[in-house]
Structure formats: structure tokens, C-alpha cells
């Protein structure tokens, strides 16, 4: 029994289990562009990581800068009879809060600000150490947080929502896009690139020094 378990642990790094159907596979080295699919249920097991840790770090820093710009710059400006009004994400959150939709204001702030920001900051933290092949302090908690937060980051939906709102407003007002909308567009692209990279690969790349 004991030796069986040791054998199991020894080979554990080379195995991967499909999260959707529990099928066990031997991991293979993937080359550029390759995706490993579960043959039983069709779910993606893992993808080739075509951006190295350094590249990912550069992207994360870029994303953080763009995130700040996107939140600080007005998204779009409306003009009517000589008056102008614009808003940022927080402007929208505050407007919803003041108008009595506090729950939605909180939801918007969480999904569009706090969760994406946490993702970016935590990922940045973890990548900074991963560049040296080390695990950052609090690595396990950081990685767990990344997995939990990921489905609740909705910046892409916000992008589409902004476009719909702008077109809707265009029927009655003059609409002038602001720096914010471009920043959000760029952020959406960056986030999409990131989504294809499973952060969990960092467990393999970083050493087994104290986690």
C-alpha cells in the first residue's frame, strides 16, 4: 500500500484528470498552437502556453496601466443643446447607487472593478516571482483566489454594453467617444489573450520552494 502510494505520487506530475468527466490522461508536451482535448467528453485539458512568463508579466503590467486609464478617463461624452455629460465606470456605479439600485451598483463595482483588479494584481504578484522560477509568498492562496475570481470578471460584457449604450444614446444625442472607451477596448483584448492561458501552469513552472 505504502509503495503503491509513493509510485502514484511520483508520477502525479505527469498525469492530468479531466475536470468534466474524471478521465485520467498522461500529459504530453504540447507544441505551439496545440490543444489537448479529453477524448471522452471533449473538454479542453490544457493548451500550449505560447507566451512565456516574461511575456505574460509584460502583458499584465500593460493591462494594469490600461485598467487605470480606462477607469480614470471618461468613456464617452454626450452633448445636448450646448450641455455635455460624461461618465467613467465609477460614475455609473455611483449613479446607480444614488438612484436606488444599490445592489446593482455593488454588482457592477465587483464584476467590473474589484474582481478584475484583484485578478490583475494577484497575477502580477505571482508572475513577478515566477520569472525567476520561484513561488511568490502566499502562492497557494494567490492561485486559489485567481481560480475563484475568474468567472466573475466581466469586462468583455461591459465593452459590449458600452457599445449598445452608445448606439442607443446616439439616437437622441451627439456622442463623442472618450479615451476610456479605447482603453476598455484594449483591456478587453488583453484579457481575452490572458483567458487562453491557464494560470495553473505556474504550478509546474515554479520550483517547489516553500509555497
Amino acid at each position, binding site marked *: 500500500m505504502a509503495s503503491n502510494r509513493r509510485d502514484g505520487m511520483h508520477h502525479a506530475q505527469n498525469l492530468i484528470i479531466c475536470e468534466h468527466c474524471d478521465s485520467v490522461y498522461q500529459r504530453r508536451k504540447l507544441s505551439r498552437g496545440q490543444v489537448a482535448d479529453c477524448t471522452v*467528453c471533449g473538454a479542453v485539458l490544457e493548451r500550449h502556453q505560447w507566451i512565456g512568463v516574461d511575456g505574460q508579466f509584460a502583458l499584465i503590467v500593460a493591462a494594469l496601466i490600461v485598467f487605470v486609464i480606462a477607469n480614470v478617463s471618461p468613456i464617452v461624452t454626450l452633448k445636448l443643446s450646448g450641455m455635455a455629460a460624461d461618465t467613467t465606470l465609477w460614475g455609473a456605479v455611483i449613479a446607480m447607487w444614488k438612484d436606488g439600485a444599490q445592489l446593482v451598483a455593488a454588482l457592477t463595482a465587483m464584476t467590473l472593478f474589484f474582481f478584475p483588479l484583484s485578478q490583475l494584481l494577484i497575477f502580477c504578484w505571482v508572475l513577478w516571482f515566477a520569472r525567476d522560477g520561484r513561488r511568490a509568498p502566499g502562492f497557494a492562496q494567490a492561485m486559489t483566489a485567481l481560480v475563484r475570481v475568474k468567472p466573475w470578471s466581466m469586462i468583455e460584457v461591459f465593452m459590449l*454594453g458600452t457599445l449598445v449604450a452608445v448606439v442607443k444614446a446616439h439616437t437622441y444625442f451627439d456622442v463623442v467617444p472618450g479615451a476610456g472607451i479605447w482603453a476598455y477596448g484594449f483591456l478587453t483584448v488583453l484579457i481575452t489573450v490572458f483567458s487562453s492561458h491557464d494560470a495553473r501552469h505556474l504550478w509546474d513552472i515554479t520550483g517547489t520552494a516553500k509555497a
Partner: protein
Amino acid sequence: MMSCHVCRLVTAYSDDPRAHCPRCHSALHVRKQGSISRSWALLLAAAMFYIPANVFPIMRTQSLSSKDDNTILSGIFELWRAGSPGLAVIVFTASIVVPMLKFIIMGILLVSVQRSSGLVTKQRARLYRFVELIGYWSMLDVFVVAILSALVHFQILSRVEPLPGVVYFGVVVVLTMLSAMSFDPRLIWDNRKSQ
């Protein structure tokens, strides 16, 4: 063997409810706990909230001459009439089609798993992944209302405000997402008769 849902480390199988991953210390579960009951509860709660979400208006547009309260559906008609059929389709898809699909598909998945059906497992697995994919896109209308409420602030001339319907709708999106996240797709495969 079992794998950790956080770091994917493969370890020896254990029935112990207190088992932890040796690498990342997350709790190890063979299957998501109470998956079927939690998923059903969240799904049914979401379905209940979907009614007020559609019956109550989500947005009020006020101008000098009129005060327009719009529900999700009337907002879609407005977009269509105002000459943006493309947008009307997008909003219709995000706010009506996606939630309805989630209700129907999650319902099918839950019923089929409870009835220990071993049929069409691969298709059901695909349906689940589809639900996971479309999950958060129904938040679209919520964000549209948020942006317009913040932008259209021209006092008496023109003013947009959110209305209670949008809160119910936001709740529906969150609940359906939670329902899909509580569902353990491996349950689909637990009942197959043959490979």
C-alpha cells in the same frame, strides 16, 4: 486518483471529507458537495426572480414631453423601432435567449442526472460547457442601464434612471451563474452504462 480543482495536482483517491491537496492545501472533493440540490435551488430561485425581472421596468427615460418606462422586452422593441435592429437582436439574445437557454439546459442536465440516465453523455457534457461559456453575457442589459443612467443626466431636458426590474435581473444572472458553478459535470458520466 483524484485531482485538485485549484492546482490540478493528481493525488491518491480519498473518501476523507477533510482531505487536502498536498500542494496548494485546498479541500479535495471527489464530487462537488450537494451539487444537485444546490444547483436546483439556485436555478429555481433564479427562475422565480426572472418573472419580476421581465414584468417590472428596468429603465426610465424622462424628457420634457414624456416619461417612458421600459421593461427588457419593450426596450428591445424600442431599439428595433429606432432603427437599430442589430442591437435589438444583441440585447434580445443576452437578456432573453441566454437566460432561457440556461434555465432549459440546466433543467435538462439536472433531471437527466437525477434519473441516472446514461444517454447522450457527450452531448450533455457539451451542453454544460456551453452554459458555462454564455454564463455572464446576460449581464449586458444591466451594464447598459448603468451607463445610460450615469450619462443621461441633463436634468429636466433628459434623464435616464434605473428601475427595480434591473435589480431583479442582476439577481437572476448571479443565481444562474452560481447554479451552473454548483453543478458537477462529472455526475453526467457517473451513470453511463458503457464507455
